[in-house]
């Protein structure tokens, strides 16, 4: 009997809990009335994932509903971007849209493009950097490029897959200095970490990944950074000169934005935009991103649309130049 009574008690508590759960779901019919799903097209632990999780956490505080991060990885970003584009456009699906969305369509890998999303906000834009081994003979980018000019094809660069954003950084830099892409060929890698391993093991000579990705090894004294491909010096790295200062007018970065499927209703978009703007102001959010070495570039609305369109055009040109575009 004792046992039975205990069971009843458990049952009662369970029912109460369930009723409580139903209550919160039905009483508020205004958006958002249920948890949101936040798609991330890259693996847990990477820069996009970290940035997105920070946004999800800050957004959760703003809208008072859980924001669940879901990693849909693979296919060079195709899988996750596709998942967001095909998600139900009811405002409960949002996600990270990354620089790859302006590259993948040119490469014939997917029919997706930036037009499949409504971009809500740009979160970060991490500039590429030119990294060499500590004992390398060059101390600035012109010296490196001069060497490449006199010894075409001798040095090799790496940082990500072929046609990835850091590959574009290389092609753009070379073309700005009137050099051909094959003058410093690309060795494809699975990301910046394996590329850095190759660099210190003397497998490649230059890495063009972002400054935040190479910073750990820069601080450990194994590599040096010759320049950063941003418009101005980064506030977190005031001692690293830009390529512009060194006479090479070229800048490029890997960026992460947050977007929703294109057909999401305008009133929901307005709602989300204001919540995201507020979330992006929170100190916990900005501190976390800056400490991770990211450069915050917050853009919304028209300026964001223009930014993404320009990226689509520039990256298309670079990919064509490299012979990667289809």
């Amino acid at each position, binding site marked *: 009997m004792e046992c039975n009574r205990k069971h009843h008690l458990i049952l009662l508590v369970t029912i109460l809990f369930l009723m409580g759960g139903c209550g919160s779901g039905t009483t508020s019919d205004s958006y958002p009335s249920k948890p949101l799903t936040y798609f991330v097209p890259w693996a*847990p632990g990477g820069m996009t994932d970290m940035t997105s999780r920070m946004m999800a956490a800050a957004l959760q505080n703003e809208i008072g509903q859980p924001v669940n991060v879901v990693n849909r990885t693979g296919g060079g970003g195709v899988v996750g971007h596709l998942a967001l584009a095909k998600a139900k456009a009811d405002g409960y699906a949002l996600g990270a849209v990354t620089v790859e969305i302006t590259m993948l369509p040119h490469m014939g*890998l997917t029919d997706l493009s930036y037009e499949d999303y409504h971009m809500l906000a740009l979160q970060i834009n991490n500039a590429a950097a030119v990294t060499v081994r500590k004992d390398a003979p060059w101390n600035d980018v012109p010296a490196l490029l001069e060497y490449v000019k006199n010894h075409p094809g001798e040095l090799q660069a790496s940082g990500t*897959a*072929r046609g990835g954003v850091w590959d574009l950084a290389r092609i753009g830099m070379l073309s700005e200095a009137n050099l051909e892409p094959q003058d410093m060929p690309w060795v*494809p890698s699975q990301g910046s970490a394996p590329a850095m*391993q*190759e660099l210190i093991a003397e497998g490649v000579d230059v890495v063009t990944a972002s400054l935040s990705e190479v910073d750990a090894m820069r601080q450990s004294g194994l590599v040096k950074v010759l320049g950063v491909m941003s418009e101005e010096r980064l506030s977190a790295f005031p001692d690293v000169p830009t390529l512009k200062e060194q006479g090479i007018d070229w800048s490029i970065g890997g960026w992460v934005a947050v977007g929703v499927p294109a057909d999401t209703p305008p009133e929901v978009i307005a709602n989300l935009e204001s919540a995201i703007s507020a979330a992006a102001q929170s100190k916990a959010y900005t501190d*976390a991103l800056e400490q991770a070495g990211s450069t915050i570039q917050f853009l919304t609305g028209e300026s964001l649309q223009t930014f993404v369109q320009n990226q689509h055009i520039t990256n298309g040109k670079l990919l064509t130049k490299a012979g990667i575009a289809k």
Partner: protein
Amino acid sequence: MMEFFTWQSLLALVLGALYGSLFGAIPGLTATLAVALFIPVAFFLDPIVALPAIISISAVAIYAGDVGSIVAKIPGTPASAAYLEELSRVAKRKGPFYGLGLCAMSSATGGIIGTLLLIALATTMASIAKNFSSFEYFWIAILGLTAGVFATGGSTLKAVVSLLLGILFSTVGIDPTLGFPRFEFGQPDLLSGLNYIVAMIGLFGFSEVLEHVYRRAKGTDALSVSDDSPGRMFFSLPWIPIIKRKWMVLRSSLLGVLVGFLPGAGADIGSWVSSSVEKMTHRSEGDAEDEVIVIAGTSSNNAAVASAWVPSLALGLPGDTITAIVLGVFLMKGITPGPLLFEQQPELIWSLYLTFLLANLIMLPVFGYLTARMASWLIRIPLDILLSAIAGVCVVGAYVINNSSFDILIMTFMGIIAFGLRRGGFPLAQVVLGMVLGPILEQNFMVSAIKSRWDIMSFFDRPIALVLMALTIVIIMVGIRTQRLRKSTD
């Protein structure tokens, strides 16, 4: 150093172990995923709290992967696939407490040896790791595959077939170097390739269900639960074989450490190489041999967990996803990795070492025992119900890895393939090994070839690469000799 042992950090250690043991025991939920889900929390915590939690999550979750091997015959990690058959035989004969006790005690021993080696050799290991380029990785992958061929009690030829099948599966999706889609049949879901954890769930778990459905009439082979006290079976009895083979434990842990500190290669290869070395060198049959292989595999994969931290700490180069996350925590807290870290922040390094020791000495056995209790309760469930639960766990486990319902189809497909392979007597674990090492082999071959402009001789130019090649040849020669000896004694 004292600041590390506040009640917050000890609590973090305990909660991390609890979380890790629950997570690791469920097929599909891996140690990496456990740590990844912990990131948003970790970034807001003090490193003094976040790091112990991460260490104890990873140490306990990797052991807890063996719980799945015993209950559902689904290995938690590719590393535990290396000794799955042996472990389930041991558990069948002596009960789950003994089986898991053997895993927990040798994991703890391996973990402690790994930590001690880390203390003694961290900077030396870092300077070796620094010299690893794609050529060395290529040979490491070859070494791992060779070990896989001989890590079977049965036919070497069948092991080769299984390995090749695994490598074939690993070629699905966008090719890792040049970005061409392969075998994707117009399916965007296939662009990302076949996930080896999904495959593992299907190959082992789902095919086990199919197998039982097929063999229905022939009765069941439920695990026996021994009458002996579970505590004794878990905590003390496993020490008998471990102490008897102390040199072998040391050797396997050393191997785990050696392979584990290489960025990206990790625990899986260590566990496979150790088990296959023992399979080749041991003449003893039955009981004793099974136990030896379990001890070798588990001690070496937990030894690798500790040494995987070396490249992150000393070079700022993450070895796997877990250490990548750890590196992120370091940088956010303004801790600079690198050789200087060992000189400038000895208290941090020593606290890390001590946390590793504590996690292995106390957390792993205690929470290991709790998960073993859970396992022994699970296997007492009538087989019919257990099997339907396993089928359910397979579906859910396959889904959660990538939140993709397509993966459930892949899992089912793998289950059916495995059912066929079992009929032909082909080993399943080798398929997983092929899927894990296939991409490493391909990428590093391609990168090396592109780098050297297709000069094949460059694969034999570098000293470490030559050492690895020599080791591969030794394994092949010893393996063939053992095969001959086995045949002649039959």
